[in-house]
Every structure is written in structure tokens, then in C-alpha cells.
């Protein structure tokens, strides 16, 4: 779903670097692929490094090509983080997309740094004890020119952000929430709806930070005030992975959302 939206938004002259994950499988069997652009498949830790070399090679040959890295949350938050952080610090000229399904789904659904508190995964059968790693803020601390979050529930918002990111020079980070029916345990036909619920309950913010300036998407404006947020349970209750959530876990998750918005508010005031 997200891959098609990226294709629609970025148009031609794109080269993609895909690190290991579900998306390596979806594209089919090499040397062909089911995506609309050439793809370099590469090991986890090497994605940002390969992209750093790739945009330079295109530039040297005077080719106007946008280089895009496509990586899962495990590949981003954990395994690939060192080279991601390095490339961001060097302000390398490419777009990094973190496709966040909140676990290592392609290898069987193990917990990742990006799995939220309370979620059951194959390695946290009683629910994860720690909170989700706050990748957006970590990336913002690298002082990159563009960082944003999006959800497949709102394709127009995602595509607008991709188009704007394409016009920016330097390191661009976009984290896309991609609900995973098999890992989160819901009916696959509801993928778009779950992506919307995440935003409506303010669990997932839709924001964009361009050169330090914060913009909150219309879909997320109601989150700025606690009273106007939709109850978090509307998002959690449609997913099997929160089956074992205790009262205390729920409070912890609510606090996570409160703190998240507190922090976003502090960035705009």
C-alpha cells in the first residue's frame, strides 16, 4: 500500500535502496521487480551507506535522480541505526523512508525498538515492557532539513509530504505507519481504517518539520488538546496484539501519547 503511494508521489527518476524486510519479498523474484523503479537490495546496516554513494554517483554523471531508502522499523531503529545516524549527520542527499509496522515482521514478528508498550509479539508473549523508541525526535536531533511522519490511512497527506521532501536538498526522513494485519492481528481488509484510527486517537501524529519549522497536518490538529482526542482504546481494541493489556499498561500507553504531544507542543511554542 505504502509502496504504491510512494510511486504515485515521486514519479519518475527515482532509484530505490531496499533493505531486508517484507518489502524485499513483495517485489518478487530478481532480476525483475514489481515496483516502478530500479531497486538495489542490500543488507540491513548498509542501506544508508549505499544510498550515500548512489546519489553521488548519479550527481557525477549529471543525472537528476532521487535516491530513496526503504527500510522497516527493525532495520531503522535497531540494526541499521548506526549507518542511518551517520548519513543523517553528514546530511547526505537522499530520502530515508522508515516503514513502521512496529516489529520484525518478515522474520516472524519479533519485537523491535519500535514496538509499542504492551504489544504481544512472538518474543514478547506477555506484551512488551518498554515503550516505543521515538525515532522522529532522534532524527530531528540530527538537525536534518526535513523530517515527517505519515500513515497509510491518509494517502494524500503522505503523498504531499513525499512531494515536498523531494524538493528539499539534504537528508530527509519520513516514518510511515503501516498497520500489519498479521502482526497486529486484525482483518487485512481493515488496514486503511486501522491506519486512520492510529491518527484519530493521536497514537500516531501526522507532522512535518522543515528546517526546524513544525507543521501539524489537519488530521492531527485535534490532538493538541487532550480533551479533543479520541480515546486510545478505539485504536487498541481492534487489534489482537493488545489482548493482554492490563489497566496499568493502558495508562502507560496513554501517558506515552500525552508526553508525545507535550513534546510536539513545546516545539511549536
Amino acid at each position, binding site marked *: *500500500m505504502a509502496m504504491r503511494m510512494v510511486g504515485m508521489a515521486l514519479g519518475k527518476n527515482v532509484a530505490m535502496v531496499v533493505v531486508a524486510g517484507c518489502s524485499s519479498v513483495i517485489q*518478487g523474484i530478481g*532480476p*525483475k*521487480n*514489481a515496483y516502478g523503479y*530500479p531497486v538495489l537490495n542490500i543488507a540491513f546496516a548498509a542501506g544508508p551507506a549505499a544510498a550515500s554513494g548512489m546519489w553521488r554517483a548519479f550527481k557525477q554523471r549529471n543525472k537528476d535522480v532521487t535516491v530513496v531508502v526503504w527500510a522497516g522499523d527493525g532495520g531503522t531503529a535497531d540494526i541499521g541505526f548506526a549507518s542511518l545516524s551517520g548519513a543523517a549527520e553528514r546530511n547526505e542527499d537522499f530520502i530515508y523512508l522508515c516503514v513502521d509496522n512496529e516489529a520484525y515482521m518478515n522474520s516472524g514478528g519479533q519485537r523491535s525498538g519500535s514496538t509499542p508498550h504492551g504489544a504481544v509479539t512472538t518474543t514478547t508473549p506477555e506484551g512488551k515492557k518498554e515503550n516505543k523508541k521515538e525515532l522522529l525526535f532522534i532524527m530531528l536531533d540530527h538537525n536534518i532539513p526535513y523530517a515527517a511522519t505519515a500513515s497509510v490511512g491518509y494517502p494524500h497527506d503522505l503523498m504531499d509530504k513525499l512531494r515536498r521532501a523531494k524538493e528539499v536538498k539534504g537528508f530527509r526522513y519520513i516514518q510511515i505507519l503501516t498497520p500489519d494485519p498479521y502482526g497486529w492481528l486484525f*482483518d*487485512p481488509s*481493515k488496514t486503511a481504517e486501522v491506519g486512520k484510527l492510529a491518527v484519530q486517537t493521536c497514537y500516531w501524529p501526522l507532522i512535518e518539520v522543515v528546517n526546524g519549522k513544525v507543521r501539524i497536518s489537519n488530521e492531527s490538529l485535534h490532538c493538541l488538546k487532550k480533551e479533543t482526542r479520541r480515546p486510545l482504546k478505539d485504536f487498541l481494541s481492534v487489534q489482537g496484539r493488545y489482548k493482554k493489556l492490563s489497566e496499568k499498561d493502558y495508562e502507560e500507553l496513554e501517558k506515552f501519547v500525552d508526553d508525545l504531544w507535550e513534546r510536539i507542543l513545546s516545539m511549536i511554542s
Partner: protein
Amino acid sequence: MSLEYQFFPVSHPSEGAGGKTGNWRVVRPVVGDRCIGCNACYLWCPEGTIGVKGRRAEVNYEYCKGCGVCANVCPVKAISMVSES
């Protein structure tokens, strides 16, 4: 297979690189008369196998996997999921 592929894991676009995925279906989406041609189904379909042609949405049954996303996002509920058997 080109020499390039043997040295670099680069792959190039081609329709149906994942095989004919239509036979994965257990239910098929059928577009009814209510369709208003808004293309919401096209926007969300993970496979790119539905889209408005002329006035109405059409499904490419060769690759559609029958996931049912289109039926859920359609604002006028024009799509029904019908059993394949």
C-alpha cells in the same frame, strides 16, 4: 541474466514480477452500479489492481489478491466481496 545482476543485487521493474497472484484469492471484489468513479479503491489497493476505467472501477482479476481493502474504503459501498467457490 545480465552480468550486472550477478555483481549487484539490482532489479528492474516488470509487471507481475511476483507471479500471477490472482489465484491466491478466496473472495473476489465485484464492482456494482453504485460506483461513482471516485478512485478511492485505486488509491488504497495494495496491488494496483483496481481503478476507474471510463465511468466505473474495474478489477484486474489476474493479479487481485482479494484482500478486501477496496470494499472497505469505497465511500458508497459499491464493491461486494463474493466467494470464489
